[in-house]
């Protein structure tokens, strides 16, 4: 159960955004992508989700090239939370979350939907918000609503063995520390349930606390990839972020 990224390069307006990136995402693991602004993190996530096509190289989901998977089928395999756009019309929070529901064939809608919907709402802690208008919420609340929608999209019947991946682009942006920790715990639990998670974070300590593996990008080049504590070392971080960095153990903490 893997997504394989195989020497993927991406050019935009003849400028190299990503250069020969290769790694694997395994289900049940949290892979965190770190890197300075403009290092190509979001582009990489867009490539994995199939929204962009690599200029060179290929991406395989369960051994099947993503090019050969239909747009509709991809939605069942992975759900994506990105840095979202403004919504013009005045939708309610309930309507926004419902947009994450994928209907597969004739599967019993009324039973499954209600259960999946209330679970997604509970997990994102937005019970109080469901009947409000989306556009009056604060930035952090809107993030949680989108997170809930992403969770609803990743719902699968309890007996299903189909692969699922969660791709999250800075899900903790604008969140207070309580909701940040809550969201990360849910992500962790999803990984324990067998879902593969790719997450872009800016907070290195948050990444250290929750991720199993880390990939560090700098100017489109993969600087490092591996187990969290192998990757997070002083030399690499100082080089990538161009800052003096101190790492203290027990508890593990990166000070900058």
């Amino acid at each position, binding site marked *: 159960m893997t997504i394989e990224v195989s020497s993927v390069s991406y050019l935009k307006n003849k400028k190299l955004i990503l250069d020969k990136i290769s790694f694997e995402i395994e289900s049940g693991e949290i892979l965190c992508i770190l890197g300075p602004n403009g290092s190509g993190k979001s582009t990489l996530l867009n490539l994995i989700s199939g929204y962009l096509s690599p200029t060179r190289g290929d991406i395989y989901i369960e051994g099947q090239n993503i090019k050969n998977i239909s747009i509709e089928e991809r939605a069942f395999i992975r759900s994506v939370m990105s840095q979202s*756009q403004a919504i013009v019309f005045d939708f309610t929070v309930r*309507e926004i979350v419902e947009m994450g529901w994928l209907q597969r064939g004739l599967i019993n*809608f009324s039973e499954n939907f209600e259960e999946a919907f209330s679970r997604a709402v509970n997990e994102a802690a937005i019970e109080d918000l469901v009947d409000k208008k989306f556009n009056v919420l604060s930035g952090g609340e809107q993030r949680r609503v989108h997170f809930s929608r992403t969770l609803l999209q990743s719902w699968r019947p309890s007996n299903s063995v189909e692969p699922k991946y969660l791709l999250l682009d800075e899900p903790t942006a604008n969140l207070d520390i309580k909701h940040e920790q809550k969201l990360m715990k849910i992500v962790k639990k999803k990984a324990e349930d067998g879902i593969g998670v790719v997450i872009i974070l800016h907070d290195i300590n948050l990444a250290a606390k929750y991720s199993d593996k880390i990939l560090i990008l700098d100017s489109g080049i993969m600087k490092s990839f591996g187990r969290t504590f192998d990757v997070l070392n002083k030399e690499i971080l100082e080089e990538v972020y161009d800052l003096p960095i101190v790492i203290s153990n027990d508890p593990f903490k990166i000070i900058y």
Partner: protein
Amino acid sequence: MNFIFSYFFFLKFINRFQVVILSSFIFLTLFFFLVSISNGSFSFSLLSLFSLEDSLNKVVLYEIRIPRVLLAGFVGASLGLSGASLQGLFRNPLADPGLIGVSAGAALGAALLIVLGSSIIPEFIFNTFALPISAVTGAAIVITMLYFFTRGFGYQGITYMLLIGIAVNALASVGIGVLTFISSDSELRGLTFWTMGSFGGASWQIIIPALLIISFTVLWMIPAARKLDLLQLGEPEAYRLGIDVQKLKFKVIISSAITVGISVSLSGMIGFVGLVVPHLVRLIGGVNHSYLLPTSAFLGASLMMLADLLSRLLISPAEVPVGLITSALGAPFFLWLIYRSRQI
């Protein structure tokens, strides 16, 4: 089974309140239909409709009144629906087939054919097929132009779109002006008659193909409602939720071009219905397209039959052009909208 289920799947996302509103608009449409066919320069009482003995009254009712009211209803429904779906596609509440130049494109297409083609094409083909096709082509050309100028209907293209609408409207009136100038007397008569905007020309022979095509297009469009909802999250998000965005755009554009083109070819330019109707529907019951699209169609139909009834009654037995009535009611509403959005 699977097909029927997936066709009606969009209905799962309408809440109870919205079901009540939708059903009341369906009743309103039936009500206005009955009121419209029984009033006019000839009046019938509703009870006597089914037991008409007098042959003159019968002819008026079945050959003139009913086709006319049906046409008004269908044109209203297609303008309301295409307004709602274009607003959804552009993610912009100001999109309206009239404002963005689609109706003007259709009008220019129709005018070109009236002046250049009416002497060549036999009459029975002309009104039923040639005129609608030419209007649909004009509408499709304008929508394709909009597509390229707004870089694929992106969110950034709002101002572009309205400015292009102004330019297209100006170009179309130049075109129609030139055509008026070069046309012969009989062509001029056809052109003038047509641009005034009226349902007066309706006969079964002309409206049946149009009603069939509009009905099929509407049935093809309505299930796209949920996809239009997802599109509101932005194109990348809709894509990630499994929507083929290019296909959806194509569907909305083609169906709007067809319905608006046919409506304009049969009834002339009728402004503001496509803008006002979806707004009213949103104000009453919510913004999700599963509710918005069908409700806009029914409210559009009701309002258009009402406007047509007013146009027949106000200075009876003469008629006020129906386009005049919709603009007189719609333009102040549009001003109010702009005023309100300035306050936010």
